[in-house]
């Protein structure tokens, strides 16, 4: 696996204060990296730095192993970016939008048609964008971003504000992209989404990385050292993960009373609360 993205001690200050404060992390090729954090944490700012929409104050940013300043226009052809505000041409139909962006990207119009089918938009392809729902627009935007089959995909809250059915659809698509080897950097404030899609997550708070690792790693790292047992009589018993606890479980099992055993793993939300002392 080669490295796709690396940040080293990146800082960026706005007039209002630090947006990013010594941010470091890296993303390997083929990974789905989830950037998690509450609103205002600096997720969008990070994507803007990585896609040259903003310039850092200090630190180093590498893309495809090159300093971001040296990333060329040709390198940029390998990238797809879905910003938090991707606009479409309202007076044009879904299909016309896709055909236009396909021409800009130098791919065949059939590629646009293929994506429309995959997004479930083919039947409504003649609809003017101004008559489309938010979920439809987001799917069209995603199709536009995928037209040139990017190797590296930046998605800024791709499912925020969408209905559950569309969210499922988008998730299925992203997993397909991952299977095709695309590296995906996505931001979200939805912990379940990160859990489901990501090989690795970084939790961001106030411009700093609080923790990172695979969702499972994090859960184990921050797991409570306790096990919950339910007995046949419906009683709930909590024991520690030590010899005494194991003996207690054994004792209940011998008495034929053991119903369920659960180790308590925190979800990502609880980990965030544990690390920052604040609710997500």
């Amino acid at each position, binding site marked *: 696996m080669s490295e796709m993205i690396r940040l080293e001690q990146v800082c960026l200050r706005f007039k209002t204060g630090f947006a990013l404060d010594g941010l470091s992390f890296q993303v390997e090729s083929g990974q789905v990296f989830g950037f998690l954090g509450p609103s205002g944490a600096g997720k969008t700012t990070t994507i803007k730095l990585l*896609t040259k*929409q903003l310039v850092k104050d200090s630190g180093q940013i590498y893309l495809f192993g090159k300093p971001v300043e040296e990333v060329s*226009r040709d390198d*940029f*052809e390998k990238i*797809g*970016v879905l*910003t938090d*505000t*991707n*606009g*479409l*041409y*309202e*007076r*044009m139909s879904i299909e016309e939008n896709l055909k*236009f*962006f396909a*021409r*800009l*990207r*130098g791919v065949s119009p059939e590629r646009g048609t293929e994506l429309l089918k995959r997004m479930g938009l083919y039947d409504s392809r003649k609809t003017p964008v101004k008559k489309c729902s938010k979920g439809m627009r987001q799917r069209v*935007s995603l199709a*536009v*971003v995928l037209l040139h089959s990017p190797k590296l995909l930046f998605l800024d809250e791709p499912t925020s504000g969408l209905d559950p059915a569309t969210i499922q659809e988008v998730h299925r698509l992203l997993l397909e992209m991952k299977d095709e080897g695309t590296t995906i950097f996505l931001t979200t404030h939805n912990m379940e989404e990160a859990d489901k899609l990501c090989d690795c997550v970084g939790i961001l708070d106030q411009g700093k990385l609080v923790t990172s690792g695979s969702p499972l790693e994090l859960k184990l790292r921050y797991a409570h050292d306790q096990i919950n047992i339910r007995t046949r009589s419906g009683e709930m018993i909590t024991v520690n993960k030590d010899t005494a606890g194991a003996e207690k479980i054994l004792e209940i099992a011998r008495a034929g009373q053991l119903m369920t055993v659960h180790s308590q793993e925190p979800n990502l939300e609880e980990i965030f609360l544990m690390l920052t002392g604040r609710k997500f």
Partner: protein
Amino acid sequence: MNLKKTGILYGKDLNDFIKNPGISVAALIPVLFVVLYRSIGLADALGDYASYFLLNIGTVMSIAMVALLLVSTSVAEEKEKFTLRTLMMSNVKASEFLLSKILVTLTVMLLCNALIFILSGTELSALPFYLVCCVLGSASLIMFSACIGIMARDQMSTSIYQIPIMLLVMLPALLSGFNSFIGTLASLTPIAAMMSLFENFQAGQLVSAAALQNLAVMLVWIAVPSILFAWLYRRKGIDN
């Protein structure tokens, strides 16, 4: 700069111009005005003066509507609807984005002005030189329009920035009756210089001090917004 991408953007922008009645009707108003003037017989009352009058007023109106408004209005819309962001993220350069809009403006303006010229009844052999004058006279306004496109955040602030430049276009018509000082001032505006250069041509005085002065006035006017544009662009970029 990638000319293929510029060409694709040009196709989209021209199509959008046609599909957007708010802008395309505005561009046709000066042409319709000349048609109306001729059809209700008002032009006949003016006699020999008619073609001169119609060409002048039609050209000034057309340049005000198209050269000044088109680039800035369409950039403002792309900012407001965030399509500019989508284009930038599709690896389009700001120079390609703006060049396409400038080319559409020139296309539409030259088409409208050629129609106005023909409808005004001016000697047809002067048409090519007239169109050259139109490009020279409107270039400064197109560049001002591009500056407004960079400065303004939305369509609302765009229309406010457009007002002072609109006055620059209208000034000669508004001040033509005044005393010599104000009259001189008016002749230093790009549109007055443009029409005056065309008159020099018609009078066979293209090689004269007056013609040279008119040309110089237009070139200075082109330089001002171009320098402003370069400065603004370096400071702010286009998508901010």
